């Protein structure tokens, strides 16, 4: 018993004061990319042809990048000697609709809070059921980590629950495999209305690297109305947490 108490003191208080303080991310962290088509070399298109996820479109001298497909591998940034694509340290990138995932030269619209009537219901107690539908366990792991003392998710009133019947929404990861389709649909149906759907990671948003493979359904947005899209492969836990808090009007 004494040892347990001694260790408790040694382990210290570790919970981050986010969102009041900003997290420190590693220098090489690939956050939201910034595009500047002005710098593009005419007819170069190197970024688009190199992208392993087919996330970049280059036409008429304009480039755009679909964060819903991007795996943040930085191959485009590396290949662009003109500097038209730069990955920033900005970890906030969750949005409310698929169109808003398309990064262009202009401003980026981050996720807004949920509807007032929903916020009244879920604002202080938001229970989610997580379903992995073909996820590789990276998105799952970086969602699960939110329950550890550093993030301490429950201080925001957000909890992951075991039963869909106890949930206010689903947090889906993975490209939605054909073999998980039925189970995912049943889980969705079991969540009482009104419900929120959150797609975490490139796979859940668009199918990611598995897009258009016959074994998958190109993500959750193909099946349900998705309220929050969290890009990444996998997204940083800070990106996921930031998105959840924006939805709950805490950011």
């Amino acid at each position, binding site marked *: 018993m004494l040892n347990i108490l001694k260790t408790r003191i040694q382990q210290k208080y570790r919970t981050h004061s986010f969102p009041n303080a900003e997290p420190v991310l590693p220098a090489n962290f690939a956050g939201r990319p910034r595009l500047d088509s002005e710098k593009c070399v005419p007819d170069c298109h190197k970024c688009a042809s190199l992208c392993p996820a087919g996330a970049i479109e280059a036409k008429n001298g304009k480039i755009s990048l679909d964060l819903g497909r991007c795996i943040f591998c930085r191959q485009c940034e590396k290949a662009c000697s003109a500097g038209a694509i730069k990955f920033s340290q900005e970890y906030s990138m969750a949005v409310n609709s698929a169109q808003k995932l398309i990064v262009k030269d202009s401003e980026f619209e981050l996720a807004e809070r949920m509807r007032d009537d929903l916020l009244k219901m879920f604002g202080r107690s938001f229970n989610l059921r997580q379903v992995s539908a073909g996820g590789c366990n990276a998105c799952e792991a970086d969602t699960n980590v939110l329950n550890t003392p*550093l993030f301490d998710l429950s201080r925001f009133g957000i909890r992951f629950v075991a039963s869909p019947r106890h949930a206010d929404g689903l947090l889906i990861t993975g490209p939605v495999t054909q073999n998980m389709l039925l*189970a995912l649909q049943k889980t969705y149906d079991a969540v009482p209305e009104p419900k929120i759907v959150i797609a975490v990671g490139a796979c859940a948003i668009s199918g990611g690297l598995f897009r258009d493979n016959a074994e998958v359904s190109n993500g959750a947005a193909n099946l349900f109305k998705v309220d929050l899209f969290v890009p990444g492969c996998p997204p940083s836990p800070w990106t996921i947490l930031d998105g959840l808090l924006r939805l709950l009007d805490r950011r």
Partner: protein
Amino acid sequence: MKKPVRLRNGSLVGLDQIEVFTNEEFYSLAADHFAEGLRLLAYFAMNVSHEKHLFMLLADDENGQVEILRSKTKSHMLSLADKIPAVVWFEREMHEQYGIEFAGNHWLKPVRFSSAPERKGLPGVTDYFSVEGSDVHEVAVGPVHAGIIEPGHFRFQCHGEKVLHLEIELGYQHRGLEKMLFGAPYKNSRWLVETIAGDTSVGHATAYAINVENLAGFKVTAEAEIIRAVALELERLANHTGDLGALAGDVGFLPTASYCGRIRGELLNLTGLICGNRFGRGLVCPGGTGWNIPTGLKEELLKRMQTIEKDLIGAVELLWNNAGVMARFDDTGILPKEDAIAVGMVGLAARACGCGIDSRTTHSYGAWQRFKPVISTERSGDVFARASVRWKEIKESFRLIREMLKSRDGFSGEASVEIGELRPDNFAVSLVEGWRGEICHVAITDVNGKFRYYKIIDPSFHNWFGLALVLRNEEISDFPLCNKSFNLSYCGHDL
């Protein structure tokens, strides 16, 4: 009869150099060599005109060699299940993928329910091995589980609280990944292999890179090999730490569960320091590494490791000193060594049963030829043994990373040159000891030097059946603890 070809880990052989044995020779060579102590690594089929060629890879752990047996058939083979129990899963897989019948294999049930070549039902809505009689009942768990984990279905045949049999049915995570590598290397291939099992990104990326480099006749630098090895050990550290915490959580010992959860994150952050991604995405690539470890970063890693190790020792020592925890770990979920060998267990789960196999040592490659790990084993084969092996390996990984990082001022492994075309009509094999165990990748090239076939065996493919075995005659309430003590990959199995 000719002798079968033997390879070293990370080497290759011309496809035409691999002897094609008659079915009878194939059966007897496989059975004899397994009986002599060779271990089943892989067993798969490949289309060759109108026939199927079968390749069986056996590991000779004593001599650090991989033996390749090859035979061919139109559609019918004999099952080797009674001689080599470990083949059962592979035969089921080949039946599902290529329609080969294995006479003597009692139930060639699909392992993944893939849509190709044709869908044979869905996992969870098929028949199961069942037990009948009064008071016998069935418990179905999954695919959607209580926590944030991947989907799988567990069907228990119980008598009261006692489990008579557990059938583990997977396939929910099947993404058709292997097929996406046929015809590769493509521009997405190196990124795709990192998602075979996201928690083993470095392990699988390394196995893939080794195959591509060997086929291209490309030698990576010693510095790149060290960066890869450091990343592999960081991956091991993070996952083992997370597992020890989760094991503590499953027996209701919350202090260690809570501390290890946080410390795991700190370890992932070390990988994040190197490449910006906590799972090591983009760190390992054919030709070298995507990132360097310059002097300043090296010092930072060493400094942070010191604090992390101290915190971790404090958190984990609580486990071993708590009688309640030990009472739950001891004698729960025992896998005897002879069963582990028969079903072909690998990795930490095998080492916990006393099997001294660790491909970093027994099939040494890359940096491991210089920095030799001590193989950590236990004998009892229970939850305690699997926890204890993790802890021994954590300590060993800290030692290895320090030794490797201190061997130079800094490390530059960034791939800067094209590695060139792959040799046509060759067969390459690589074994990498991921944190769960041995990862085996086999690449076979066509006349144009593209992958005609790519085979991935995640350690989970061997080990899931081990979990089913330990549940026999256990209380059903011990399932979560037993499951966590293996912590196998669903998508690594389902690909």
